[in-house]
């Protein structure tokens, strides 16, 4: 049988982008939550956890209210000349990011919390700046937690369905990710296609997890 590999490629691209954004945004936040005492720390913690426990439909609904054509972010996007944001691949990335970033952040935070602060203190007395200390001491020592977070976040992003369907829709060749294509195939009784896609999605995601697990064990220290 023939099948369209487009949705799978789209899922890979969306999940990779979402994970990269999670890294850039999530790792500093995870560090801050593990190291700094600031007002609103608990609130931030809860906000980060919420996407993990809320139904994907609720998440999708909030996102629609944020990036829809009537919403501030959606309008800002259009004002930049980037066109409509909802029902685009970019919206799928946003949905995957919001749904998966908490997994990366929680794991990275646990990684940072396991790093004894005496190493950072030693680095300070040796004259290095806080940013240098982060990259040369804290992050390498928290490496396993960060890699585990990347793996979990990526897997979650690959499997994102509910919120993506609500904000990016189901446009074949444009926003139809693998998980949505599977749903679509099942709805249309294209069982063989659903089987194949589900199998490939499982193997690809499992393979990525395996790869990252080896990376986490191997390097780091």
């Amino acid at each position, binding site marked *: 049988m023939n099948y369209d590999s487009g949705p799978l490629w789209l899922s890979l691209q969306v999940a990779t982008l979402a994970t990269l954004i999670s890294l850039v945004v999530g790792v500093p936040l995870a560090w801050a939550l593990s190291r700094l005492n600031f007002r609103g720390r608990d609130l931030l913690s809860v906000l980060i956890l919420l996407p993990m426990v809320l139904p994907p439909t609720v998440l999708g609904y909030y996102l629609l209210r944020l990036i829809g054509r009537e919403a501030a972010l959606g309008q800002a996007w259009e004002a930049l000349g980037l066109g409509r944001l909802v029902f685009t691949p970019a919206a799928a990335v946003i949905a995957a990011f919001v749904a998966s970033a908490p997994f990366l952040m929680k794991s990275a935070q646990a990684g940072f919390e396991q790093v004894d602060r*005496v190493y950072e*203190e030693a680095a300070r007395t040796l*004259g*290095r700046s806080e940013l240098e200390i982060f990259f040369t001491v804290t992050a390498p020592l928290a490496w396993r937690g960060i890699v585990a977070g990347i793996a979990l976040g990526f897997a979650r992003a690959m499997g994102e369905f509910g919120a993506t369907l609500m904000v990016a829709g189901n446009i074949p060749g444009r926003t139809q990710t693998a998980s949505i294509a599977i749903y679509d195939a099942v709805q249309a009784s294209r069982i063989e296609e659903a089987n194949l896609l589900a199998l490939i999605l499982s193997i690809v995601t499992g393979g990525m997890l395996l790869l990252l697990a080896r990376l986490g064990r191997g390097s780091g220290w």
Partner: protein
Amino acid sequence: MSLSVDIHLKVGPFELKSAFQSFEGITALFGPSGAGKTLTLRSIAGLAAGTTGRVLLSDRVLLDSRAGIDLPPRARGIGYVFQQYALFPHLSVEKNIGYGLSDLPSAELQARVDSFLELLGLDGMGKRRPSELSGGQQQRVALARALATQPELLLLDEPFAAVDIRMRKRLRGELRRIQEVTGTPMLLVTHDLTEVRQLANFVVLIDQGAVLESGPAGEVLSEPLHPLLLELTDEKLV
């Protein structure tokens, strides 16, 4: 070099009010457990947030809370040997020793690292990880790492606590030698009178967060003015 300390710090119910001076050579910060010795070191290094008062190192003001001066640890020019050494577990011995030298050109950095490996008898160990070293070797790496940045003052927090008695004796002799070779003034926390006798030029007696007595080691130890010191010396002499 002269170090002049007059600090105040509250941590929960514990109050530290520490005032003393130290000079060249080795100064022992001596007192029983829980006296505030480590906290004093941390305050001097700039690692204890909330410290008020003044810390002067020669002609440099490190802390003057009234004038709003509080230099961060990295700007204080003070080396610190932690009790458990705090060697970076993910870096080789060489990388540990060179960690504070990132501003140097690489050839110069390597030369400096090599000279400290040699000074501390660590030749050939540069590529090892800290976990592959004995306790005594780890301690020497910690010393080398702190001294390599050529600090104006070196703080040592019970540097021999983590090694056995035989090693301790040897390391004490070595510390004395290294102090003489490098000329780096040292402030050493200890609760061991033997250590004070063997190493210290100057003694600061501290208990319950306050300095009770301080002066040249000979004077303080031969004519103990304070009952606590009498108690500690008697105990150790038996």
